[in-house]
Structure formats: C-alpha cells, structure tokens
C-alpha cells in the first residue's frame, strides 16, 4: 500500500465516521456520550479483571484488601473442582481426556468430509467408546468410577453431545412421521410434539429421572443419567422436528416430483433431495437450537447432577472462597462463551459454504 493510498483510506474512514455518527448536533452529542460510557465501562472492567487482579492461589489473602480487583486466586486454587466436579482427584486426567474425546468427536462430525453414515458412525462409536471407557473405567486397569461421581465440564459436554446425537435422528423420524400420508401417524405425531413442547423441560427431566422407573420394568431402568439424556433428547427432537418441518416447507414441491419422476424411492427422495435442502433452509434456527440446548444442560443440576455450573457453585461454596462467586461465574461464562461462539461461527461457515456452492 502506498502512502497516498493509505492516506485516502484513513480519509474515507474518517469521512464515513463523520457521516454515520456526527452528522447532526444531537447525533454527535449522543455519539460522544455513548463513546464516553463505553470507554468508561471497558476501562473499569479492564482495571478490575487485569490491572488490580490477584492471580496466584497463595496470594488469596490479598483479595481481601480494599483496592483488590478480581480474585483469580479462586480459579487457580479450585479449577480442578470446577472442571472435574466430584470425579476422584487422582483420575482427573481421565475426565479431561474423556471430555476431549467428546469434543473431538463433535468437531470431526462437523467437517463435511466425514458426512457419510459409515464415517460418522465410526467416529461416534470411537468417540463415545473411549469416553465411556475413560470415565467409567473398570477395564484396562482403570479403577471404576460410578456415574454419581461424574461431573464438571466432562458431564456438560457429554450430556450436550448425547442429546444432539440422539435428538437429531429422532427429530428426523418425528418429521417424517408428521409428514406421513397416513392421518393416524401424522396426527399422533403432531399430538406428541405438541404435548412435549407444552411441558417445561424440567418436568420432562424429572419425569425421566424419578417417575419413569415406576412405570417401566427394572431391566430397562439404566442409570438416571441415561434416562435424563433420553428425556432431554426427546424434548430437543420435538423442537428440532418443527424447525425441520419449516425447512421442508421451503423446499419447492417440484423437487419431490422431479425425484419421483426419475424413479427415486421414498428413502432416496427423503435423504438425497428433501432433507439436504430442508437442513440448509433450517440452518440458522438449527444452530440456535444447539446453542439453547448447550446452555440448557445446566438445568440437570436440579436433578442432582454435578455439571459445570454446579461444580462452579461448589468452588465458591466454602467459607474461604464465598466472596469470589463473580470470578467463578465469569470463568464459567467464558467457557460457555467459547463453546457457543464456536457453534455460531460453525453455523456461519456452513451458510457461507452453501451460498458459495449454489451461487
């Protein structure tokens, strides 16, 4: 870039700024006020979180001083409790690896290159297999850890990934049943979806955890965690089925006719023509649904699971750290943010990918 080019670049930026923010007296005043406010807020946050912060665990006495900022000592001292919950201390590496296995599985299955039934199936089998072996133990010389002791980030990620991987196919099945030409099937499905959507998530999870064991035979009980995941997945699926139905309505009627005219079978029409287009049309609300679901995993605390928000609460639960809850929540907030941010970037990537493809 030559100097004259860069000069004109700055000049045009300046002109644009002046046009957008300072075109009138009132506009200019408001702009200035807001700018001052913004700088003030950012500076306060920066001052609190960085400049006056106490970083080391052994310095935690300093946190009590009047001019102390954020007390990150709490994170330094208690991060293992936050991330791993009640999982046995010496086995934390297993929880970390298990968490990594699930995250890797999710990331790999987001890559278009692996989108075939066989590859995705293998990835999930390996990912879940290693998660289960690592977390549960009992073989390969790993000590056995009961599900009650699972917790923290590993549990949050596991519940989210399981809900998604069970809920998505279930959503497709519900969608197809809802679209069935047989009124009994489509209407029954419609009622199921409406009922499940009408219930609060918490009710469904409680029913799965507490009520279900009374109504199904003992050998089907499984662990409470798995029942809760299934209930959660059903809830997810009912919402997602409706999202996908919206997507299907955006697919032109001629598409299915053309596929019929070519002799494609029902399954091929659905899997090659209708669903791929429906998923594209429904992408933004689908990503939204994933984000909501990720955050909703925190609700399982109430049924007695020690996911990351609960283990965070435990981290400042002792008298010693009781004052440092803001820092703990900021830390957990950042973890949530990084996951959700990745999800929404991924959504943006997918949207870009097929606008380029179809332009």
């Amino acid at each position, binding site marked *: 870039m030559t100097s004259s080019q860069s000069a004109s670049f700055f000049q045009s930026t300046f002109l644009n700024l002046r046009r957008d923010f300072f075109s009138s007296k009132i506009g200019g005043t408001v702009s200035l006020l807001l700018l001052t406010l913004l700088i003030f807020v950012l500076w306060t946050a920066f001052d609190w979180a960085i400049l006056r912060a106490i970083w080391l665990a052994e310095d935690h006495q300093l946190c009590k001083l009047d001019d102390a900022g954020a007390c990150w000592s709490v994170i330094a001292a208690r991060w293992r409790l936050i991330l791993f919950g009640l999982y046995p201390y010496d086995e934390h590496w297993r929880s970390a690896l298990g968490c990594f296995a699930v995250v890797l599985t999710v990331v790999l299955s987001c890559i278009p290159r692996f989108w075939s039934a066989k590859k995705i199936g293998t990835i999930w089998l390996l990912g879940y297999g290693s998660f289960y072996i690592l977390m549960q133990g009992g073989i390969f010389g790993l000590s056995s850890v009961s599900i009650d002791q699972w917790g923290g980030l590993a549990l949050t990620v596991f519940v989210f990934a399981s809900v998604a991987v069970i809920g998505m196919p279930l959503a497709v099945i519900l969608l197809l049943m809802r679209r069935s030409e047989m009124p009994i099937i489509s209407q029954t499905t419609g009622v199921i979806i409406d009922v499940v959507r009408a219930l609060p998530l918490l009710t469904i999870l409680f029913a799965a955890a507490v009520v279900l064991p009374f109504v199904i035979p003992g050998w089907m009980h499984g662990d409470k965690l798995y029942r809760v995941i299934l209930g959660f997945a059903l809830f997810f699926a009912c919402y997602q089925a409706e999202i996908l139905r919206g997507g299907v309505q955006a697919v*032109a009627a*001629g*598409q299915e*006719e*053309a*596929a*019929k*005219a*070519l*002799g*494609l*079978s029902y399954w*091929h029409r659905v899997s*090659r*023509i209708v669903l*791929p*287009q429906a998923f*594209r049309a429904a992408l933004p609300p689908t990503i939204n649904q994933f984000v909501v679901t990720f955050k909703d995993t925190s609700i399982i605390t109430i049924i007695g699971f020690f996911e990351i928000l609960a283990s965070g609460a435990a981290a400042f639960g002792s008298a010693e750290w009781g004052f440092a809850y803001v820092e703990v929540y900021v830390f957990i907030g950042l973890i949530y943010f990084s996951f959700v941010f990745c999800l929404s970037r991924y959504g943006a990537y997918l949207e870009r990918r*097929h606008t380029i*493809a*179809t*332009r």
Partner: protein
Amino acid sequence: MTTAPEEIAIEISEMNMFYGNFHALKDINLKVKTGERIVVCGPSGSGKSTMIRCINRLEEHRSGTITVYGTELNDDLSNIDEIRCETGMVFQNFNLFPHMTVLENCTLAPMLVRKMSRTVAEKIALGFLEKVQIPEQADKFPGQLSGGQQQRVAIARALSMNPKIMLFDEPTSALDPEMIAEVLDVMASLARDGMTMVCVTHEMGFAREIADRVVFMAEGEIVEEAPPEEFFKDPKTARAKTFLSQVLGH
C-alpha cells in the same frame, strides 16, 4: 390394422381422474406407439398437465387403465417404479436439484435406481450433456445457469436414465423468447432420433414440424386427435377452431 403389443408404448383407456370432487379428466382414451411423437394442446385448465402426470403417477387416476409397455399402473409400487424408470419427464420449471452440480443432477438417479457405478453414470451423463450442448457446465450448480441451459440440463437428466418415453410439460413456457429455440432444437433432435414423446406445448411451429399427431384437449376431454397438417388446416370442432385462432392469431 393391428399393432404388435410391444409397439404400443402407452395405452390409456376409459381413464377418469378427480381432484377431490372436481372431475379433471373424463374418459380419456389414448394410444401412443413406440417412436411416435404426440403434441398435446388445449386451453389453460383443460387437463393437459394432469393427463401426462397420470402417466408416471404424479397424479393418481380413479378409474380406467393406464398401461406403459405392458405394465399396468396400479397400486403395485414395483409397477410404479418400473414405469417411472421407463419414462423421463421434463417440467415447466425445470425442477433441477439446486444443491447438486449439473453432473450430480444427471448421475443421481442412474446410480441410485439403476445401480450404475459412478464412472459409468458420469460417462453416460456427460454424453447427454454433450447432446444438449452444455458439457462445459457439468460442474456448475443449476443456479449459475440461464433458464434455457437449465432446461437442457433437465432434459439430459431425464435422458440419463435411458427412458423409453419422454414426457414434456410445457418445457418452454417459463423461458425468455431467445432461449426457447435452443430447447426446441434439443427436443427436435430427440424426435429425429426416434424417441417416443408426449409433449404438452403451445409452440405450434414445433408441433407442425415434428408431431405425428396432435391431441387437442378441452375441459378434461380429448376433443380432437389428428395429424398436424390436418389439425392446423382443418380443425373439426368449434373449440379447436377458437383455440387455434387465439394461439396463432398474433
């Protein structure tokens, strides 16, 4: 005169079709021989689309019979599949699959339905894309093509299944005038190759040039059936006369 049964491509007899209570097709009788080229015309709403859509079960007839190469169209799904494999269809709105490239559009059904390998299917598809004169567009997406190009892809896609019969439902009606000719050219060359064709169109020049027979429909009935010279010069019915004067009038 008797024709050997295998020479009869499509036989429709006493066929009735209803949309709910609306009687859309009334006692349709039509025989199409192998290699014959039929042009179907008639005023809007006369049931032309409905009739050819019955032939591959995009619409379901209520009574009468439709037989395609000896296979009767009934509730037997394998019969329906068989007939759909033997008949290609081209729609007014192209109906290409927007999420697939041109080549993928043409290889999908041969690979899934005819169980061809990808290499064979691509070779065949490229052959037909060449025939419709757009082999260079094979890797583009439908949205990147002009209307005329899209319709030619749709023809190539139907041909890639190697059908014995081609059905056209107003293939040029959604096209800008300058693109109509390129599509009609492709259709005319298909006709010269001896393809059995049933074609709903308002392109009377095309009908005159390539049709063996013109079928004129009105209000759900076949009103008149005649070779094009006869139909255009000397239509028998008043309704056909009115229709022709409207279509050819300007």
